[in-house]
């Protein structure tokens, strides 16, 4: 029977797996052609070599630099913006971070800052968080990083204030008006999908390197959550409540001020929290364009592979992040401080600020129990120990991934003739998303060739794909576990939340210690950065599978494995593709950071472009290449998601 049935089934099988067969065929043909045409037409470019495009951008940069003070667009527009923002940042820095107004110290010294931070925390978040805040800030001082921390805090606060100044009104507008919402949503989508570092380069063209560019970059990154969440908060106030207010004869304004905003307050504060965390993350990254603060310490240390210093500063960023997160999260709760505590706290704070204004000991953090150097030494010692005694494990893992995954993929992508890779990608795009996807991919590939950075792009693409595969493996394993077990979810979710709050930089430090500078280190850092998002999306997707269906499957006698593979994963496939999409975007946004620790290729090009004038054009082109890669992969995964979910 089997023998007879087989030939009959063959056409059906062929039909069923047609697409898989075609894809397999394409890949096979690629491999064969790769063997034949290896290293021909790969469009390589030396690290210091430039294409006419890069030189042209350099020229523009020079021309812009030369005309900065004569061209009216600059005189009356960009320079004005830059000046205003610079002034504002400098003002905040003068208050808490930098010597100012002819004083050798900032206006408010450490004791005053600790007092104000403690009091604000007390007022919005209660006693326990206030204690945490005070301890955290004192710890920053003890680390020997007071001034750097305050620089970072100043920049963050300045960016947050400006973000909220624009973000909340825009959010309210988008919440009230469908039309405004329709216009804003795609813009915000674009702002958020763009890898964070990419707008650093063009911004420096208009606003120079320094705090203004850093603040504007931070704004672009930090304002969208404020706008989105405010709009969402306004929109999700129950229709009923609004109707009740209208039925009592409230004007639009009365309804907004007395009903919508107070009801949405909690969610809006959540948006503020997101904005602050995003701003902190971006401010540290903006160290790449010379933003002062902790980020700069980390970047410098990373460039000299000084893990101890990087760890100390990274720890300070973590402490700052935890404090800011706790305070703003706790602020969402309704809370009323007793009158005496409020005014008592205000009085004490006033005294502390006065002391810190008047006396040097309260202004400058001087401590005999400085712990920064011990942290540095400790981290360095651990690193050395790890590198000496764990090479079997870490080295083995690293070599395994490098030789089995990274190298072959990179060889295939970067050593094939460019037209071959392009042809394969366009063909695959057509299979996944039809003509539209194929056209998008073709345009993106053309742009990559135009940037003159084809081979670098392919190397980065290889790393990105490897990282994304690892993210998905992690995401499915941990996500399914969390989705199936409430207890696992309860333990893992806070860890993931904490992971997402941390600025991207901080991830590099421990991995640099473990794996030293290499492509692999950058990939692992990207995986760690992207995994929480993917895991959460998959866990939520698994959890959202109807319990009745799972129960029915169990009742039919499925094993856990069968239930996962045949019921939960297929039903959560929308979440899976979304996770892949988000994973890719997150991984790509770490490309530049990875450039700091040996990822090479596009990431390195961008980083080098920031630091060396003659490479400016190339760096900018590399930034564009990252965006183009991002757009292409985003479109492709979204097309795949659409196909898969229907």
């Amino acid at each position, binding site marked *: 029977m089997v023998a007879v049935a087989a030939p009959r089934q063959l056409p059906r099988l062929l039909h069923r797996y047609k697409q898989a067969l075609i894809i397999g065929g394409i890949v096979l043909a690629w491999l064969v052609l790769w063997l034949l045409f290896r290293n021909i037409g790969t469009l390589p470019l030396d690290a210091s070599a430039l294409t006419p495009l890069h030189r042209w951008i350099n020229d523009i940069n020079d021309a812009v630099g030369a005309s900065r003070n004569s061209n009216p667009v600059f005189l009356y527009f960009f320079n004005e913006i830059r000046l205003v923002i610079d002034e504002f940042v400098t003002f905040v820095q003068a208050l808490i971070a930098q010597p100012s107004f002819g004083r050798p110290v900032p206006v408010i010294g450490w004791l005053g800052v600790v007092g104000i931070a403690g009091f604000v925390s007390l007022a919005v978040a209660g006693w326990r968080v206030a204690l945490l805040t005070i301890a955290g800030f004192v710890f920053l001082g003890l680390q020997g990083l007071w001034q750097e921390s305050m620089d970072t805090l100043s920049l963050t606060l300045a960016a947050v204030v400006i973000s909220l100044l624009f973000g909340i009104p825009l959010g309210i507008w988008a919440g009230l008006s469908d039309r405004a919402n329709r216009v804003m949503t795609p813009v915000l989508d674009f702002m958020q999908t763009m890898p964070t570092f990419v707008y650093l380069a063009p911004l420096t063209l208009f606003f120079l390197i320094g705090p203004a560019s850093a603040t504007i970059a931070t704004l672009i990154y930090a304002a969208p959550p404020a706008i989105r969440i405010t709009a969402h908060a306004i929109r999700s106030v*129950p229709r009923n409540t609004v109707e*009740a*207010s209208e039925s009592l*004869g*409230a004007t639009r304004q009365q309804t907004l001020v007395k009903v919508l905003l107070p*009801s949405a307050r909690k969610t809006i504060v959540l948006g503020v929290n997101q904005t602050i965390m995003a701003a902190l993350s971006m401010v540290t990254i903006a160290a790449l364009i010379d933003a002062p603060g902790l980020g700069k310490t980390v970047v410098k240390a990373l460039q000299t592979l000084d893990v101890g210093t990087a760890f100390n500063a990274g720890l300070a960023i973590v402490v700052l992040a935890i404090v800011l997160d706790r305070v703003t999260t706790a602020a969402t709760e309704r809370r009323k401080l007793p009158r005496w505590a409020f005014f008592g706290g205000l009085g004490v704070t006033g005294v502390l600020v006065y002391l810190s204004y008047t006396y040097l000991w309260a202004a400058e953090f001087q401590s005999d129990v400085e712990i920064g150097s011990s942290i540095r030494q400790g981290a360095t010692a651990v690193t050395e120990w790890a590198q000496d005694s764990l090479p079997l494990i870490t080295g083995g893992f690293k070599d395994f991934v490098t030789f089995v995954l990274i190298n072959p993929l990179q060889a295939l992508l970067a050593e094939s003739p460019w037209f071959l890779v392009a042809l394969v990608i366009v063909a695959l795009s057509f299979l996944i998303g039809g003509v539209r996807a194929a056209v998008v991919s073709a345009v993106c590939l053309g742009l990559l060739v135009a940037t003159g950075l084809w081979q670098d792009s392919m190397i980065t693409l290889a790393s990105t794909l490897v990282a994304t595969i690892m993210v998905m493996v992690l995401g499915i394993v941990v996500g399914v576990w969390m989705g199936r077990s409430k207890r696992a979810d309860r333990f893992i979710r806070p860890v993931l939340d904490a992971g997402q709050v941390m600025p991207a930089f901080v991830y590099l430090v421990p991995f640099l210690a473990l794996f030293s500078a290499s492509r692999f280190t950058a990939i692992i850092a990207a995986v760690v950065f992207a995994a929480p998002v993917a895991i959460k999306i998959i866990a939520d997707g698994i959890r959202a599978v109807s319990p009745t269906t799972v129960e029915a499957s169990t009742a039919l006698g499925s094993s856990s494995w069968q239930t996962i593979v045949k019921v939960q994963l297929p039903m959560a496939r929308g979440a899976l593709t979304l996770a892949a999409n988000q994973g890719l975007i997150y991984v790509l946004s770490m490309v530049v950071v990875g450039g700091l620790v040996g990822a090479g290729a596009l990431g390195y090009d961008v980083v080098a472009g920031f630091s060396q004038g003659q490479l400016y054009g190339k760096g900018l082109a590399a930034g564009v290449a990252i965006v183009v890669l991002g757009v292409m992969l985003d479109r492709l995964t979204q097309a795949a998601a659409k196909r898969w979910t229907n």
Partner: protein
Amino acid sequence: MDPVISVRDLWKVFGSNASQVVASDELKSLPRSELMDRTGAVAAVRGVDFDVAPGEMFVVMGLSGSGKSTLVRCLTRLVEPTAGTIMFEGENILEADPKRLRDLRRNKFSMVFQHFGLLPHRTVADNVGYGLEIRGVPRAKRGERSQEVIDLVGLSGYEKSYPDQLSGGMQQRVGLARALAGDPDVLFFDEPFSALDPLIRRDMQSEVIRLHREVGKTMVFITHDLSEALKLGDRILIMRDGQVVQVGTGDELVGAPADDYVRDFVKDVPRSNVLTLKWIMRPPRPEDDLDGPELSPETVVREAVRSVLSADKPVKVVRDGELLGVVADEEILGVVAGEA
């Protein structure tokens, strides 16, 4: 007496081409589903007419999707009607400009909602005073008036609580107090008790009856629950597919249903509780002994059972000295036994 609210040929059509629908007699005559297929528009309220007398408790009853909630929202223009007139104390409120409409809402009518619509960030007292606040009533006066209505609805002692600390029934009392605080002429209730559990619902119904008696306001009450409608309503309007099926007192609906839909609806109603003698009396026959006891035609059957059964002669149904008919054991038993 002139009606407080007088609604004529009121239409509400949802959809981008709503105005075309109400302009065309042909489209207007289509059943809902066909209209939906033809134009994509949904006719929620279709040519509704009714009057509400001062001080009346007017109940609009219908199943979900019958358009009753849309209808009550049209009356206050929370939903903008597509066509028709709504005369309120002699003024067509469809012609009111936004300012006039706000004045009306602030002073003339107010509404109680199914899901309460309370402001979660305000205390009970501040919720109740909200309407006064937006009118610009000074704080002290507001507090005074809030306290009055809070006492009236039986919430004394909860002034400082927040809505989420109260049970559903108490939350709706807050909603009721808020509606009463502005001393409106008309109160609209949009299925106010359907989110409450049955015992609380019964309490709240009695509460509304008590308030209606005490404050004597005109009330328009939306419900999907026939027994609630019969319990509260002076008159009841039955809606189906956006149209009026029948308007009448409870005993009229039960005694003389306008069509099979209404008949089906009132089938399970305990008739002896609703029907009055005028619905079951018969003309006197020659053999009847006409010196039995007298009862009014408005007497509810259940209350007449004892006197009819204990009398050995038929009971006379008399209004203003005029003999309308008689009721004997068999008529009474016909109603009571029919329920079993």
